[in-house]
């Protein structure tokens, strides 16, 4: 199917438009619209995933073997001495993002189902939700930095309003904190983006500009012509293409971010500083210590579907962004800072888990566990081994499913009693046996029990992180060993929570909650059961995902190691 990715990205937008156009009298249709449009998107994504050829080795630093590519010139302009720059409408999938697209489809669909019970201001809610869907999906398939940034920033607004209007008691604080925090991060990314596109040219368009036919010249010819000055560097076409940015041959000779140029700023190579900026930008989104403090607030205040989407997919934008931009574009800096990143990852794992141990609010606990689990992503990336990076991607995918489930579960109890304090419950297993089963599954999945997807992911990260020292030397082996502590702590906070809330004698703080405590409804099964199936499927049969990402990750690692 042509333009498949465009359909995937924009169907929710069409859904949003339909919601806006549907009069208030048909209010009940909004959620149907939301579910059907995300459902349709999911179907298309499944189609895309099945037609995705995992064996093709993508180029990472070029468009070779990019699949379902859509590229159209969006605009190109010349700005005086700034030279020509071109922005493309450029979508495509390779091993690095296909899994995220799949995850986005699943989580957004489940999130849409979770929106079922929204009562007030439905029109605004559902249209914002669908807008959010479009921007998230766009983020994962956009390969033009401008387009990526558009979607990346555009996630903030719907999220801001969704938390700020439909959230809990401190929603305004949380919403503003979320917004400002992530904006600060994205400004850092913007800074680097400006630097990048000013340093990178598009060889193909440059050739066009110079009147050279691509039939006669290969890209490398053009690159060497630029390097040798046969094409003047003011004549090149600057590019927002993220894949071109990853190819060090595409850097304009002498530009600030040119690897051979190595301009310095405050005594540090600019490439390193740019890498750090982009790292912080995405680490905020991820979130990693010490940039995580917006997350607990946002999660606690966000309504359930939003928590699901936030933890399930929005955080992954941070990880994916790191892979696609920071790592692919600055492999040398990534290697230089591997120790730092690995350490942050390790520290986040333990710090998040320790914090979770002390939380009294169920949602906060899950939020901190997210911090802990996203630490694995950083650790895996820092390792710069194929196991580590696969693990990082797998962890993002798996955490997307598991944390969605965890937040749905927290939502179930909150829906019934409007209270999330762990200490206010005891022995719920008597009253809500089926719910307890799902909680148990979710908790065990999250603490990395084999058979669930989280285990595979964490195992890969450990293997990759440990291997790093002897293969590439990015991070020392002890980081992996120390990080395993996270597993024990995870077992600690989940099991204690489980024990306090569900085991022992039945007890709740308020008598009036008792009649409200009914077991799962069909609607809740509808969300939880597919998640359980997916979590187990990806835990037992990792090839489901690995076949999609393997060649991409391999190529990515080759790209990294070639540039160190």
């Amino acid at each position, binding site marked *: 199917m042509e333009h498949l990715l465009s359909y995937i990205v924009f169907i929710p937008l069409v859904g949003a438009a339909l919601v806006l156009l549907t009069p208030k009298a048909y209010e009940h249709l909004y959620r149907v619209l939301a579910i059907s449009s995300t459902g349709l998107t999911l179907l298309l994504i499944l189609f895309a995933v099945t037609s995705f050829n995992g064996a093709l080795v993508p180029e990472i630093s070029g468009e070779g073997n990019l699949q379902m590519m859509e590229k159209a010139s969006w605009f190109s302009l010349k700005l005086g001495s700034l030279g020509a720059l071109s922005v493309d409408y450029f979508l495509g999938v390779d091993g690095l993002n296909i899994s995220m697209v799949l995850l986005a489809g699943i989580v957004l669909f489940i999130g849409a189902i979770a929106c079922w019970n929204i009562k007030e201001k439905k029109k605004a809610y559902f249209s914002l939700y669908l807008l959010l869907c479009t921007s998230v999906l766009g983020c994962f398939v956009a390969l033009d930095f401008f387009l990526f940034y558009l979607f990346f920033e555009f996630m903030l607004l719907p999220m801001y309003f969704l938390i700020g209007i439909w959230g809990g008691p401190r929603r305004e604080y949380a919403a503003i904190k979320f917004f*400002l925090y992530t904006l600060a991060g994205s400004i850092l990314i913007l800074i680097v983006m400006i630097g990048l596109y000013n340093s990178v040219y598009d060889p193909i368009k440059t050739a066009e500009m110079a009147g050279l036919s691509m039939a006669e010249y290969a890209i490398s010819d053009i690159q060497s012509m630029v390097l040798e000055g046969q094409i003047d560097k003011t004549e090149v076409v600057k590019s927002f293409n993220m894949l071109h940015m990853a190819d060090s041959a595409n850097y304009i000779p002498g530009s600030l971010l040119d690897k051979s140029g190595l301009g310095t700023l405050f005594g540090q190579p600019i490439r390193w500083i740019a890498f750090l900026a982009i790292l912080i930008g995405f680490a905020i989104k991820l979130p990693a210590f010490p940039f995580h403090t917006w997350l607990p607030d946002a999660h606690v205040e966000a309504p359930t579907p939003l928590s699901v989407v936030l933890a399930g997919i929005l955080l992954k934008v941070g990880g994916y962004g790191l892979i696609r931009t920071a790592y692919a574009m600055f492999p040398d800096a990534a290697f230089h800072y591997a120790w730092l990143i690995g350490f942050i990852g390790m520290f986040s794992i333990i710090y998040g888990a*320790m914090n979770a141990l*002390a939380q009294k609010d169920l949602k906060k606990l899950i939020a901190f566990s997210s911090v802990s689990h996203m630490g694995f992503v950083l650790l895996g990336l820092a390792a710069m081994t194929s196991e580590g990076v696969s693990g990082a991607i797998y962890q993002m995918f798996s955490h997307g499913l598991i944390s969605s489930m965890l937040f749905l579960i927290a939502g179930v109890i909150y829906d019934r009693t409007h209270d999330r304090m762990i200490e206010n419950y005891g022995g719920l297993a008597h009253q809500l046996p089926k719910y307890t089963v799902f909680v148990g599954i979710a908790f065990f999945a999250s603490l990395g*029990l084999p058979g669930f997807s989280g285990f595979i992911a964490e195992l890969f990260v450990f293997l990759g992180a440990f*291997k790093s020292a002897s293969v590439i030397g990015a991070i020392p*082996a002890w980081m992996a060993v120390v990080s395993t502590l996270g597993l024990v702590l995870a*077992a600690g906070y989940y099991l*204690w929570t489980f024990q306090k809330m569900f085991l022992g004698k039945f007890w709740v703080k308020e008598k009036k909650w008792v009649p409200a405590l009914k077991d799962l409804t069909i609607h809740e099964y509808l969300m939880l059961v597919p998640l359980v199936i997916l979590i187990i499927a990806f835990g037992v049969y990792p090839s489901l995902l690995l076949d999609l990402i*393997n060649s991409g990750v391999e190529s990515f690692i080759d790209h990294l190691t070639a540039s160190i």
Partner: protein
Amino acid sequence: MIDLLDIISPQSSAYLPWILALLILPIFSFATTGFMKGKAPYWSSAIIASNLLVAAYLATVFWNEPLTIRGNWFKLGENQFTYSFYLDKLALTMSLIVNFVALLVHIFSTEYMRTDANKPRYFAYLGLFTFSMMGIVLFNDLLFIFIFWELVGVSSYLLIGFWFQKKSASLAANKAFILNRIGDLGFITGLMILFTQFHSLDLDAVKSLMIMSEIEDGNWVVNFMQGGKEVISSMDGRWLSAGGIALFCGAVGKSAQFPLQVWLPDAMEGPTPVSALIHAATMVAAGVYMLARIFVLLDAQALEVVAIVGAVTAFMAAIAALSQFDIKKVLAYSTISQLGYMVLAMGVGAYSAGLFHLITHAFFKAGLFLSAGIIIHQLHHLEKGGKKFDPQDMRVMGGLRRKLPVTFFAFVICSLALAGLPGFSGFLSKDAILLDLAVWADIKGGGFYIPEVLAFMTVVLTAFYTFRMIYLVFFGEFRLPKILGDASLPNKLKEGNLWVTVPAVIFALLSFTFPFGFTLNADHSWVMEALKTPMYLVPESYAATSLLDVPEETFHGLHKTVNIVSILLALAGLFIAWLSYKPGAKLEKTFIERREPVGVLGQISFYHWYQNSLYQNIFLKAILAKSRALAWFDQYVLDEAVNLLAKLNVVIAHVTRWFDQVFVDGLVNLTAASVGKVGQLTRSIQSGNIQAQILVTFIFLLTLILLLVV
């Protein structure tokens, strides 16, 4: 050069369905039993029985010719992950034992759990356990062993916490799981080390590559091909020892070794048949089984650690078992102690002896637990309608041999095996261990005699606590009526029915020597023949001296001494127990009133070296305090810092406003003051004053000019 991919290339076999059946049947039981309501026990027992038949069939087919089956699981980067089954005598024996014990426990539980409303759940959990245990046994891939290792942990968690309305049960379940997890960290670290070095976790691959690895300049190096590409793996040689120790950590958790053994006594919160199956016979032995699987990969240092840990555990737990009141606690400590023996055996290189003890222990300890279960179950019946009491407390027992003769028989037989008296299975296996230990200590010398001393002391202790238990439970008079003041109780107490006694008796029969060979010399047992100690595969400079290299004569020379000493020691233990706990003895008389043991040693014993409170107070509290501190830090420092940044914005906003307006004032006032001297100005100037604004602007401009020009 060997290509890794060749080693782990898929191997198929027509018997794959049979092996899969061993896994699928129990998990099928897990999946379906929950819906069976009242029929659950029969349903699941039937499934396990068929599983046992499958295992038996496979054992007959593959006893002499091990079977390897391998298939691809997934590919991660260039690394092929495989699943592989390996059916050798060890695996077959284990699968037989697991299924056999499981079957008997199922049968036993049918009666034991008859009145429990949640018994479908119970039997389902048992199915899950059998499934995971079979996984550990059958798979020949460390990753899969680890996976099922964890699943076993979960089923243990579920079963310990089966009566989750009891807070103590749920806490015990947590404790078991978390302490096991701590051990598993080591396991994972071991996996990391092996994977990094060998790019595979398949045991065949690991072993073949381990043979090829060498120590060069203190580095552990191995060269091999992987899919046509040459790989040179190299890391510091110390990782080799670390890897072994790390993997052993997993066993420390699962097999309840020092310092993680504290979960096992608590795990007695679970139903007694579960204790028999999981926490005595099979699951806790998985650690030893795993050690056997990786035995050849351990280097001298790792083995020393294993031996020392085993000896210390054996001794500590035996001490702890001396003074317990709870019959299951005694058995639990005894289990820990016996597991210590097995681990010690592995550590000294007594592979066959260790596994032999694993097998004998599985039977006699299961028998002990089931017998104890009968006692508890029957005493529990007395509780109905009457006053509540703790049916596991030996203080309420006494003189039960008359009321429960079959149980008494089973219990005593199994106890004799446990104490290691000739004619019983425990004697054979313990003797084999002690012999190898003695040889090992002689080779090593020096401080390595300590494990030997500890092990021999444990023999005395074992006999002592075993017979103390027998005296307290079965001899003397029934103490419960006195405590409750109800004289009719003895008449109500009845022997358990066939559902429960038959399994116990079967185990008792298996605790004699004859199932393992009509001999008093362990070496002549078919088990020792079947499970031959393999050679170490680690590079020579790191390898321990294998007992296989020790001349036969050394063993012969020591054999008699060891035999006699151990028998004497066991008898000594028995004698002391008789002295102190025979009916009418001083200790026996006061036993009933005692709240806790007397004396420092008694306390140490009773509180198990205070290990629990040590962990509670030092580690747990520290961790919780730290986590609270971190949470506080997160909320009040980190978050505040961010808020502070926001507030700083506000402050800057104020400052700039001040700059904009108030500063104007100040500056203007200042000017006013200076100008005032000239004469004109006396009045104060207020903010919002246009002149002041002009002035300030002007001053700004001047400052800027000065700054730049100067």
